[in-house]
């Protein structure tokens, strides 16, 4: 059970003078329960890839399979859609209902679930994103703060209980508190339901902290995929693609340059733990 991208290519406006390959020959697999971070510069094809995985775009070459269902086939795509939850950039702009509860219920309702099941899911999803049903359920989504709107929109996707949750820069434009809330929600959801997460992000720190695997995209091609430790060793490669190492990595490198024997770390916690341990021995 996995999302499989088999040599996927997508060309915008194929056959016209403006045709442009957004994604070329991508081979990637997202196993159940995976946490994949996707990084790359603007225009590297991340957003196109997200839409391909959600079956919103049909690849011009190759195949996308979700649990063995081919997204190129209309019937199979319909069956596969509920398994993949897509959270677009600035998802709060898709809120439309009179109340938060109704908006969150839109997805589950479209799945054709029984009203009791819909309500149960809405409650669960709203609790999970930190908008308790009893306090927020009857509020208008347009009366919420920016961060709350984002979480309400996230709840709308979570309530569909997808096996794969795909997020396109879910933290964009949020303050540090809002970012943390969203990240914790995603990590908590994964722990609780075991769903796989694909997170596109510009923040190297967030990807380093949460992702099990990282895929690096550049100009529509998959440059490298692997564990964070592996990816962040390729400093020269990342630099050449216009990407920076996460701050803890850079700090560790700076310490190393001054003669401290720091092991390869890429999260704040790991670096802090090492420094504390070392402090004890000095």
């Amino acid at each position, binding site marked *: 059970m996995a999302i499989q991208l088999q040599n996927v290519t997508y060309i*915008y406006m194929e056959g*016209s003078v403006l045709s442009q390959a957004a994604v070329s020959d991508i081979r990637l697999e997202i196993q159940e329960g995976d946490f994949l971070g996707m990084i790359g510069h603007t225009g590297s094809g991340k957003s196109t890839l997200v839409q391909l995985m*959600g*079956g919103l775009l049909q690849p011009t070459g190759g195949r996308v399979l979700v649990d063995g269902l081919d997204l190129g086939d209309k019937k199979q795509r319909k069956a596969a859609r509920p398994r993949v939850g*897509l959270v677009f950039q600035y998802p709060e702009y*898709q*809120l439309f209902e009179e109340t938060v509860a109704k908006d969150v219920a839109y997805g589950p309702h*479209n799945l054709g679930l029984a009203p009791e099941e819909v309500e149960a899911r809405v409650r669960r999803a709203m609790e999970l994103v930190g908008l308790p049903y009893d306090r927020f359920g009857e509020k208008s989504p347009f009366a919420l703060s920016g961060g709350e709107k984002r979480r309400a929109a996230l709840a709308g996707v979570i309530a569909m209980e997808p096996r794969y949750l795909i997020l396109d820069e879910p933290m964009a434009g949020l303050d540090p508190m809002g970012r943390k809330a969203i990240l914790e929600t995603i990590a908590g959801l994964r722990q609780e339901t075991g769903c796989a997460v694909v997170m596109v992000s510009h923040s190297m720190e967030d990807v380093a902290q949460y992702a099990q695997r990282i895929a690096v995209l550049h100009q529509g091609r998959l440059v490298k995929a692997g564990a964070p430790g592996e990816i962040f060793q390729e400093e020269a490669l990342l630099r050449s693609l216009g990407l920076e190492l996460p701050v803890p990595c850079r700090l560790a490198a700076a310490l190393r340059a001054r003669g401290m024997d720091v092991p390869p770390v890429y999260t704040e916690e790991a670096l802090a733990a090492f420094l504390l341990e070392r402090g004890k021995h000095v």
Partner: protein
Amino acid sequence: MFKDITLGQYFPGNSPIHRLDPRTKLLLMIAYIAAVFLVQDMWLFLAVGAFAVGVTLLARVPASYLWRSLKPLRLILLFMFVLNLLMIQTGDTLFHWGFLRITEGGLRQAFYISFRLILLVGGTSLVTLTTTPIALTDGLERLLSPLAVFRFPAHELAMIMTIALRFIPTLLEEADKIMKAQLSRGADLESGNIFQRAKAMVPILVPLFISSFRRADELAMAMESRCYHGSEGRTRMHVLRFSRRDGLAAAVTLGLIALILLAQA
């Protein structure tokens, strides 16, 4: 989904026709339209047609582009032709069958009206093909500005048009995004009867309206913070100036039209 739509029909280029002042093009277009309506002779129609073809060649607009703007006309053209053919009953009868009677006058009028339509749409398309929408509104504003004496809001109208044009692609992109988001939440936009489909559009239209209002608000704020206060005392970055080319174009066009009308008289 909306990525393939090309907006407006401007064909980028740098021909003499492209470089004409938009006001010249608009005014000559009016003269041209008048000529098309005044002509009542097959040969003179051909002369007007030759003029239009000449301008097309000079503008280096591919015939396929012009064809595309004429294509939607097919049905109307057929309708008008048949209607004129059957309804106008003057001159000798050419054909008679039951209640159908085709006369010489009807046949002539049917051809005239078809030529007129083709020349009308083709000629005006030439203007929009060779002028950017912004230049067009700019020209329109300048042409209408004398009407300010009668409190006609020429500047405001032009600004409204410019803003509308500017935001069409933005709104299309936004609609596309929202549609995709709702599709991935299981929205079904394709099945059901017309009422179900209309209802299915609500989750797309509500966010679209909200974001349009937000954008309008932000734009108003941005314009005000840059001291926009309407047309009064406003100067322009690109000042429209008639050049020798405009004079030449006007002389040639008006001369030809005068000749054609003289020939008719």
